[in-house]
């Protein structure tokens, strides 16, 4: 983002790998990371360690799995298209010509905010540099106290008279700032992590939460508007006594069905997120009950300003934070070689552990039982840390979560097959309120309208892991 003059000279701590211009394992079907000839300076997005895809030379980024974003876009386009083609002419003739204007405005608003939510950096924290990581390791080792080994990797801070535990992220090699969570689907730590939304194909975090909120609110207006217009159209036709033989009727009925089921779920989701905004909570915190005082302690949300209006303003109208990952900056020539080789190291180790944990998911995909969604894939998070000192010492906290993940991933895999049989009608607020296992850091998106596709996306992700190896 900024052209930094102060390039750190730092040959000691970085490993000196053999400069082989091998492409990274992430170089999959997307041709957006071409093998640059070594002489040309590469941009930083080429060596970005998370599971994201970049387009337009780093200007646009999405999660590796697009989830059901094409479906979301398709549904919105098809429904709106049918509305404009078949309902608007009738309604303009019989009611008012404002209807297509309002509809058009809402449609454009919805599509723009959807694309912004999907393509914006949600607030990804860049991983710690090797120097930083070894400095933190030194500090952890120095405090060394505990009765069991290894020492728990948490740090306590006091925020507005509330004790908050900061967890150490083994992937990103740093203590996560408050409200930050590691998304295993994208393999990034995201600030003010809300959830990973498969409908938009991206995480929702600090930087794109306002886009997401605007998207769901405007989408609820759009679906309610279309639903109202379609109902009026059908009512007027029936009243007119002309009979219902028109060809447009089946298509109008399709719109009606889609809108009817969407309205409830989207309205519910908007209402839920309005509550979150007003109390300055994230979906992640709400699910885990971080500030609800369930454990009997006197805990309050330390980030809330105790005033609904101020909370709303600070979440939605606060200053827009910058992207912390410099996607389009150029790599210094010496670093591009080192990071390329280092990149090869990490994914190999990561994928190996994923084989152990996620092969169950592939078998599970072949079964057809439907189970409620449990968790997103937290397996990769539970992988043993690949820290530079070579210690392979996961904390007990992480190893239990990995063990737990094995079981749940297996059972979850079964939920993913009947995707095609699930329609949008199957979503319910019941599914939305299913609570993920609170011991995991990575939340699902239980508030997303359809629990089915979201677990499908995760189940497919399990399959894709095993396909990679």
């Amino acid at each position: 983002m900024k052209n930094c003059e102060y390039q750190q000279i730092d040959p000691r701590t970085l490993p000196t790998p053999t400069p082989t211009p091998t492409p990274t394992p992430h170089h999959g079907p997307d041709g957006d990371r071409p093998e640059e000839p070594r002489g040309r300076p590469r941009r930083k997005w080429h060596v970005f360690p998370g599971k994201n895809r970049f387009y337009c030379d780093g200007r646009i980024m999405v999660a590796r799995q697009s989830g059901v974003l094409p479906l979301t876009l398709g549904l919105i386009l098809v429904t709106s298209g049918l509305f404009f083609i078949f309902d608007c002419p009738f309604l303009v003739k019989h009611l008012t010509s404002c209807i297509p204007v309002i509809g058009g405005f809402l449609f454009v608003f919805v599509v723009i905010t959807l694309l912004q939510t999907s393509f914006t950096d949600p607030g990804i924290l860049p991983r710690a540099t090797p120097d930083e990581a070894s400095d933190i390791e030194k500090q952890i080792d120095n405090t060394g106290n505990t009765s069991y080994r290894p020492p728990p990797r948490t740090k306590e801070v006091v925020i507005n008279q509330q004790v908050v535990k900061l967890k150490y992220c083994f992937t990103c090699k740093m203590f996560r700032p408050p409200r930050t969570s590691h998304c295993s689907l994208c393999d990034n730590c995201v600030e003010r992590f809300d959830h990973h939304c498969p409908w938009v194909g991206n995480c929702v975090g600090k930087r794109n939460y306002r886009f997401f909120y605007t998207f769901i609110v405007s989408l609820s207006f759009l679906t309610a508007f279309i639903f109202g217009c379609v109902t009026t159209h059908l009512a007027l036709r029936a009243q007119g006594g002309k009979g219902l033989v028109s060809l447009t009727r089946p298509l109008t009925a399709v719109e009606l069905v889609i809108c009817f089921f969407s309205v409830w779920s989207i309205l519910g989701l908007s209402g839920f997120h309005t509550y979150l905004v007003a109390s300055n909570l994230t979906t992640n915190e709400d699910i885990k009950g971080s500030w609800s005082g369930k454990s009997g302690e006197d805990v309050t949300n330390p980030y809330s300003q105790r005033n609904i209006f101020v909370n709303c303003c600070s979440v939605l109208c606060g200053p827009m934070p910058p992207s912390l990952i410099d996607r389009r900056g150029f790599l210094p020539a010496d670093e591009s070689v080192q990071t390329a080789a280092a990149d090869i190291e990490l994914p190999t180790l990561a994928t190996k552990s994923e084989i152990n944990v996620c092969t169950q998911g592939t078998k599970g995909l072949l079964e057809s039982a439907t189970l409620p969604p449990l968790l997103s894939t937290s397996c990769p998070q539970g992988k043993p840390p690949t820290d530079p000192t070579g210690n392979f010492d996961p904390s007990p906290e992480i190893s239990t979560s990995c063990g737990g993940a094995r079981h749940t991933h297996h059972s979850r895999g079964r939920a993913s097959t009947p995707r095609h049989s699930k329609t949008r009608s199957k979503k319910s607020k019941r599914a939305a309120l299913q609570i993920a296992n609170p011991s995991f850091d990575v939340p699902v998106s239980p508030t997303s309208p359809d629990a089915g596709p979201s677990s499908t996306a995760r189940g497919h992700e399990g399959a894709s892991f095993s396909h990679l190896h």
Partner: protein
Amino acid sequence: MAETHSLQDMRQQAAVAAKVFLQRDYTNGTVCQFQTKFPSELETRIEKQQFEETLRMLNNLYAEAEKLGSQSYIEGCLACLTAYTVFLCMETHYEKVLKKVAKYIQEQNDKIYAPRGLLLTDPIERGLRVIEVTIFEDRSLTR
């Protein structure tokens, strides 16, 4: 031998002796603030007061960037009404302040830290997580 050392000279001549990382201070929430505790490694290189003054100034700049005031609300509301497309053409308030921070750090490095064999890294290069202070070996400096 020169009194003022350009950063290029320092890079070419001096080797990195150590790096000190100043972590974030979360006592006021998630706003960007850095701990002002003076690290012991820098005791021989720079005066405590000078260093703390630099840090205080940086913290003030970041507080200004994240301030919830009428300007940020107007910017936010305007952006919402235009479906946030203004962010594509306009530089946000935060980005403007970050430019100020970069300029301030460069100035401090040139005037104060480079002559003492130190180098401050702009926190934005480290994801606003730490302020990295590089301590160079003392052999090429004449003080």
